[in-house]
């Protein structure tokens, strides 16, 4: 989600326009009234203004668009099948290392010290004792080779291992009928997912990538992996988990990205 737009267009139709249709109407072109053509050209120009910069930033337009986004949240929750598994792939297809992505560049990553790191638990859970990395690693390990899809359009296949989020939520005796599971991160990133997705068999608190401890640039010591959501829905460098009924939003979700973002 970096600022990258070319200021000039490199777009040229490779084959050009089919000339036969113009040839067909050659007598018309020759006899056209210039004024008529101009008038119609103007109305077409007015139509293209629709795509201009003004309309999108109007508050009323923003309101309509966000209304549709909330409608899409509801449709996606309805479409979501809690038993449907994301396709899995072979070890040979795993991309190493994984692709870096954050709201800043890779050399701005601040590594987390595992000796002092703790995972805080908050909200609707009975056991709120903070977790050390050793204690997380003592829970049964699950593993998956699935496709990671970014909202930007790129994807890769990765192998993630860690603790099932459902198992973790059961261990802390969380209220599994709550609406949201929210995450806060060491890098001031935050995010939240719906409980149905949190309980999906392929949703995990990830400690390892490709059988190695997950690297500093990719969320060490703990990141979320949700095989049924877009990449930005999976916070990295997690420092706290909260179970709640109050909509928590998130870093990109507060910046107009669709909240549910299910795959």
């Amino acid at each position, binding site marked *: *989600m970096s600022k990258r*737009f070319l200021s*000039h*267009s490199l777009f040229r139709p490779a084959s050009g*326009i089919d000339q036969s*249709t113009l040839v067909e109407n050659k007598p018309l072109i020759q006899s056209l009234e210039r004024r008529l053509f101009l008038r119609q050209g103007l109305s077409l120009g007015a139509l293209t203004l629709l795509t201009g910069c003004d309309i999108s*930033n109007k508050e009323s337009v923003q309101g309509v668009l966000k209304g549709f986004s909330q409608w899409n949240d509801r449709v996606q929750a309805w479409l979501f099948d809690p038993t449907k598994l*994301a396709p899995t792939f072979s070890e040979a297809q795993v991309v190493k290392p994984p692709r870096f992505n954050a709201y800043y560049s890779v050399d701005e990553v601040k590594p987390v010290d595992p000796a002092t790191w703790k995972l805080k638990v908050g909200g609707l859970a009975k056991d709120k004792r903070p977790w050390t990395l050793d204690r997380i690693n003592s829970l049964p390990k699950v593993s998956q080779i699935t496709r990671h*899809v970014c909202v930007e359009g790129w994807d890769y296949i990765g192998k993630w291992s860690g603790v099932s989020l459902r198992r973790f939520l059961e261990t802390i005796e969380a209220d599994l009928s709550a609406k949201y599971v929210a995450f806060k991160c060491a890098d001031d990133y935050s995010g939240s997912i719906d409980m149905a997705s949190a309980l999906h068999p392929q949703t995990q608190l990830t400690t390892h990538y490709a059988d190695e401890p997950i690297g500093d640039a990719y969320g060490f010591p703990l990141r979320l992996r949700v095989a049924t959501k877009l990449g930005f829905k999976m916070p990295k460098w997690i420092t706290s988990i909260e179970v709640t009924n109050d909509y928590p939003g998130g870093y990109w979700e507060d910046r107009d990205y669709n909240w549910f973002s299910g795959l």
Partner: protein
Amino acid sequence: MTSTHVKPAYVLVHPGIVRLTHWINAIAIIIMIGSGWRIYNNVPIFSAIQFPLWATLGGDPDLTYARNSDVGFSNALLWHLAGMWLFVVNGIVYLAYAILSGRLLGKFFPIRPREVAVTIADTLRFRLAHDNLTIYNAVQKLLYVGVIAAMILAAISGLSLWKPVQLQALISLFQGFQGARLVHFLCMSAIALFLVVHVTLALLVPQTLFAMITGRVRPASRISLESAE
């Protein structure tokens, strides 16, 4: 105009529902292509192909950057995922009407390869291939059916990109996520090229444009500016 000049009667070529869905579709296509180009620019499939910012939909980049720390990518996504409802619901209404009323079969089929060849040959010899606006010639039939197919495939590939896990059978049909992206892009390209021809011809033969607004044409009139006044 002299009194001896008798104009033939107007006939209805485009029923109200066809005109309505046509213009809603026009708006939907502008929204989908405009926002799609902004989304595409963020991570292009072909590095040589980028769309000029002015032709894309997604708000003022500076304003959006100040608010959202991106240059309108999020706004383009909002447009795209809202516009898809307009595009798909309107498309279903049109197709349901066109199929149930028999219009689709009657107007666009059969498409005979021989007639296509003849129409192209006539066109190359500067012979007007469609002097009667109430019927489509073979090339028109082919182009309209083609663009309808491209729009249906655009919707299906788009749906698979939106829901690659829930609709994973579709994604494997497209040979993976990037395959679906490519198909989606190619459908857009086909629609955009069609639009160039379609809009150009509608402006060159204004009777067709008026017909899509009023619904009526004079069937016997040869194409000339006489009736455009």
